[in-house]
């Protein structure tokens, strides 16, 4: 099923939910409005057989494509778009918002897996509804993304840190999280 067919089918069932679609390198991708996410997820699971949630991947696009780090060794990386730079000029499509949360879905049972990706775009601090009610396996997936990326999943029954210590400050996978030079944690534990 192409992304256009998929988008049409989802739009028909949940009006006003899909804002964009893309065929993608690996699987069709639908962009969904956050407030319609649970409805779309339920429809995909019940009517379109996407009963298996493979992964929830949140991506931080802070500074995405601004300063493509191709050169290893300088502080800011090498600007690939500058004149005389190594390689061809490159313009990267700018993301609409800072965070993308991407849900990788598949069909498990009889027949092909027919993977599909749905994504929502979020600003910093914006909430996205939890899909634990649709796919119970989302429990730890969402907790992990909350912990490491700081995405708030509204309605999650147990949204606590999972990987990092409970008193950890910050979300390490964010692009503005300091790499090196951060305060040493646990120093007061001795």
């Amino acid at each position, binding site marked *: 099923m192409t992304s256009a067919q998929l988008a049409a089918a989802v739009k028909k069932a949940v009006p006003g939910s899909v804002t964009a679609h893309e065929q*993608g*390198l*690996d*699987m069709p991708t639908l962009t969904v409005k956050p407030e319609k996410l649970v409805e779309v997820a339920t429809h995909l699971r019940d009517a379109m057989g996407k*009963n*298996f*949630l*493979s*992964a929830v*991947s949140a*991506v*931080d696009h802070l500074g*995405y*494509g601004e300063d*493509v*780090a*191709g*050169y*290893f*060794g300088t502080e800011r*990386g090498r600007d*690939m778009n500058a004149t005389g730079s*190594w*390689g061809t000029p*490159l313009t*990267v*499509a700018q993301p609409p918002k800072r965070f993308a949360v*991407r849900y*990788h879905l598949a069909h*498990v*049972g009889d027949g*092909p*897996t027919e*993977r599909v*990706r749905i994504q929502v775009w979020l600003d910093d601090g914006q909430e996205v509804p939890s899909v*634990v009610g649709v*796919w*119970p*396996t989302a*429990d*730890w*997936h969402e907790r*992990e993304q909350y912990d*490491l990326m700081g995405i708030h999943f509204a309605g*999650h*029954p*147990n949204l606590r*840190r*999972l*990987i*990092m*210590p409970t008193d950890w400050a910050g979300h*390490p*996978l964010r692009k503005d*999280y300091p*790499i090196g030079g951060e305060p040493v944690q646990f120093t007061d534990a001795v």
Partner: protein
Amino acid sequence: MSTIDERPPAPVLPLYEPAKIPPGAPSKVDPPAGADLITVNFGPNHPSTHGVLRLIVTLDGEVVVGLDADIGYVHTGFEKNFEQKTYWKGIPYSPRMDYVAFFANELAYVGAVERLIDIEVPPRAQWIRMLFAELTRIHSHLIYLCTSAVEMGALSVFFYCLRERDSVLDLFEMATGVRMHDRYPQFGGVAEDLPKGFYAECRRFLADMPKRIDEYLDLLAGNPVWKSRYQGIGTITGETAIAMGLSGPNLRASGVPYDIRRLEPYLAYDQVEFDVITRPGGDAYDRFMCRTLEMYESVKIVEQCLDSMPSGPVMANDRKYVLPPRHELHTSMESLIHHFKLVTEGFRVAPGQVYHTVESPRGEFGCYLVSDGGAKPWRAHFRAPSFVSLQSTAMMSVNRYVGDMIVVVGSLDGVMGEADR
């Protein structure tokens, strides 16, 4: 203080009752209120928890009534580190996640990058990768078998399994130079062709291995002690298992024939014959049988690899991404510069995203990469099957004895390095 006589009799546990998804958070079972309960901390350092899994267990006598699993004790920031490394430097880093099925991680990462840069891998390299992927499966299932047996007190199985594991690692050492974490698959192929004498050594192992698997089954499958500990423990139906995201042998033991090798053939899995092992029961015993029988299938695939592996190059001829051959470095300055540039600066990858899955011994191992056009991944995310399967520990363990909880954790075959990443 009540005396022993006044205590209520030990509860009669319901047998063969499949696990249900608990209300509230699916990965946690809240203990009932008001009862005379005790909360015990199993782990993170406990010999029975397969690494550093922490189980916060609420007990009613010896029966588990509440459980909350906690992970993250070996979190080392793999995903963050991948963002700081050029694509090349991710290859030796990836096998360190699931250190028991190291080759499967490399395959997922390398496969994802290869899809992003759209490079054609020569057939011989595909077959060599498949050979080692199946050897890794044997290796991982042997580790599962020996550690879960040792948790049940079956010490001898441990030594038998490690003996065969050593043979697998010898084969790895022969071809890749190291026993684990080999950096053998590279973008566009594998590092070098198989060495002289590898075929003979591998065939010797393959002739031996089925007899060894027979031995494990003789030792365990019909063993009444093993059966009483394993049968009916941690039962999960196929439907619940899919909802909880189980994959690999954990899901196939519940009767769902989900195998990425068969459904989305990568490498050359569409050109070899093998059976997807499924079992109907969904309990710990079936998961054990599923893994053990899968070793026979892996032996079959490796045999077919040796028989029908095509000849030809093992590395793609695309110098934009592939290191120049070693011998050129001594004679060609351009090759030397090229080699240096590839290793230090890396290569640029067109902006895009890809989610690439492989069938790791533990299930669906996925690598999600986002590129912004630079030489380092913008975001790397790994779908670790252990991370997902350990969520089911709570629902599978409640209303059983503590000893059964150990069986459940063992039978899910989690590797904490992969779960925590």
